[in-house]
């Protein structure tokens, strides 16, 4: 049994113009200690997927359906109280915006200690001692001083380190990182990624990494799931995906990355773009979700939605022509 098994996850939002199917029937799993990256462009449903796993989507207007089994328990069926016992304890989350994700009026120590007091029943003094320990672990200098400081006294990189300290304080089994490095400078990004990789080995937590940055994926992930318009279009081990992308969308994504596309897949060095726009999620889509932007789409694609198929060992893709493409290449 995998640590996390998501089955047919659907997250729909009621909006004035119709139901927005932000996530429409996505299934995936994460093994213990594994790092799964979920990639896709803005609005593909990757953040909504991650938030709905912890049930952080406001309902209404949102509506989550399907199954999210964590260590065998379906999180979507738990009471609010049971869910709260899991948040920040068994599963914790790091967000995109370190500048705004910390509470500006509470000290760093308080914010780290809070989860420890809540989930592990530590008293104030023990929680603060552990907070200092956590700050040391995430590489913040002078932790005894920093623990008493407020977020505005820290830089962006330090704040993200604090977020990681909060997330890891209770030794979670699963860490969901939603674009953890997007808002940071490139050099700080590298530091944070190194830190996450290092801590992953030490703590042994599984990671679901949400990102649109394929460079980050190549560095830390073991397996990659590609999402498009609220659906999973491809999934494969990271090396396999980079060297042998089967879905035209994934190929487009890799082609649109300045360095990685050319160095890994050996294609032309010209930067490719994916023409067109993501289809509206408020209207039913007939056929393949990517057909409108796909260079090789045919009438078949526009009529029948392709199912996810095993295209190679551990490699699935949802494309009528994926296998042919791979053979031809």
């Amino acid at each position, binding site marked *: 049994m995998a640590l996390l098994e998501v089955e047919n996850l659907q997250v729909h939002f009621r909006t004035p113009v119709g139901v927005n199917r932000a996530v429409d029937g996505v299934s995936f799993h994460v093994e213990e200690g594994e790092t799964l990256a979920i990639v896709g462009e803005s609005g593909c449903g990757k953040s909504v997927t991650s938030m709905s796993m912890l049930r952080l989507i406001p309902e209404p207007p949102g509506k989550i359906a399907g199954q999210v089994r964590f260590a065998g328990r379906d999180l979507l069926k738990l009471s609010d109280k049971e869910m709260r016992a899991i948040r920040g304890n068994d599963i914790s989350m790091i967000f995109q915006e370190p500048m705004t994700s910390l*509470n*500006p*009026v509470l000290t760093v120590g308080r914010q780290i200690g809070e989860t420890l007091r809540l989930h592990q029943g530590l008293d104030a003094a023990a929680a603060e001692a552990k907070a200092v320990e956590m700050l040391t672990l995430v590489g913040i200098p002078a932790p005894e001083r920093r623990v008493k400081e407020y977020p505005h006294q820290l830089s962006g990189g330090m704040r993200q380190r604090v977020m990681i300290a909060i997330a890891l304080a209770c030794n979670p089994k699963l860490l969901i990182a939603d674009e953890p490095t997007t808002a940071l400078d490139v050099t700080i990004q590298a530091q944070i990624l190194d830190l996450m990789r290092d801590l992953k080995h030490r703590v042994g937590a599984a990671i679901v990494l949400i990102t649109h940055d394929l460079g980050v994926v190549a560095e830390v992930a073991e397996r990659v799931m590609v999402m498009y318009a609220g659906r999973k279009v491809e999934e494969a081990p990271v090396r396999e995906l980079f060297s042998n992308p089967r879905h035209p969308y994934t190929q487009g994504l890799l082609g649109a990355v300045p360095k990685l596309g050319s160095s890994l897949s050996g294609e032309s060095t010209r930067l490719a773009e994916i023409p067109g726009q993501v289809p509206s999620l408020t209207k039913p889509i007939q056929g393949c979700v990517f057909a409108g932007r796909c260079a090789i789409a045919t009438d078949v694609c526009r009529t029948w939605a392709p199912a996810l198929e095993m295209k190679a060992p551990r490699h699935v893709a949802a494309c009528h022509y994926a296998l042919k493409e791979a053979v031809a290449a």
Partner: protein
Amino acid sequence: MLGYILRRILSTIPVMAMVGLFVFSLLFVAPGDPAALIAGDQASPADIERIRESLGLNRPFLVQFGEWAWRTLHADLGTSIFTSLPVTQMIGQRVEPTLSLMALTLVFAIVVSVPMGVVAAWKVGTWVDRSIMTFAVFGFSVPVFVIGYMLAYVFALRLDWFPVQGYTPITDGLGPWISNLVLPALSLGCVYIALIARITRASMLEVLAQDYVRTAKAKGLGQRSVLFLHALKNAAVPIVTVIGIGIALLIGGAVVTESVFAIPGLGRLTVDAILRRDYPVIQGVVLLFSFIYVLVNLLIDILYTFLDPRIRY
């Protein structure tokens, strides 16, 4: 921090000086001649002139102001034209009911209105939110005396839960003191509650959309900690500000409330003094109320730095 508090305290001095100047000028801009008033209806112009001279009212404005300011600083507010009693003594006798009423209203209003605003923001758009906001509009629109008479009719005359009017000093026991003040505090509090609840709701709505609220939820915190610790502390600055500004509402409302419930407080003293043009008393009361207002807002300014660590002056 200490430097800031000290500077903030010092800055109240020019404010109080301006208030003093304004209060003293009342005597000159208001219609009616105090000397003629003291002399009475039968006095001849010569009598009035004599009184004016004996009171020093014929001297230059600034000289009179300087002398008045000097006396005021030594806690001497002069004597009442009507009762010939020292103004400080008259205020001293009346200050307890008014301060009791204001303090009780303040505490009661904050305890009720802040949770109301928080809940309204949390349940925004639902019937809970709408009923709270309807009450807020109602509380804001209905005059104090209407609410006062309605409450007195229902809870004092019909149900006989509380006395209709009057005041019992706190030295006579906490129970009677409170029971006499419940209805006045309720009527005076309505406007104030409406005001604070509205601001709390608006401020909370903004804060609840922030990323750190999502972080707090992701940590597994319960709804109460998310709302009342993580969100409310961030929403506190505008709320506290409006509580401070609202003290002016309380002062104005206290005058009316005291009339409705026959409380022998400063409000009644003020009204009586105005009707009799008893200028020293008017000056003393206005000065006292201004001082309270400035003091409360000073405390609130200092409170800011405790509520939000980013605020440093």
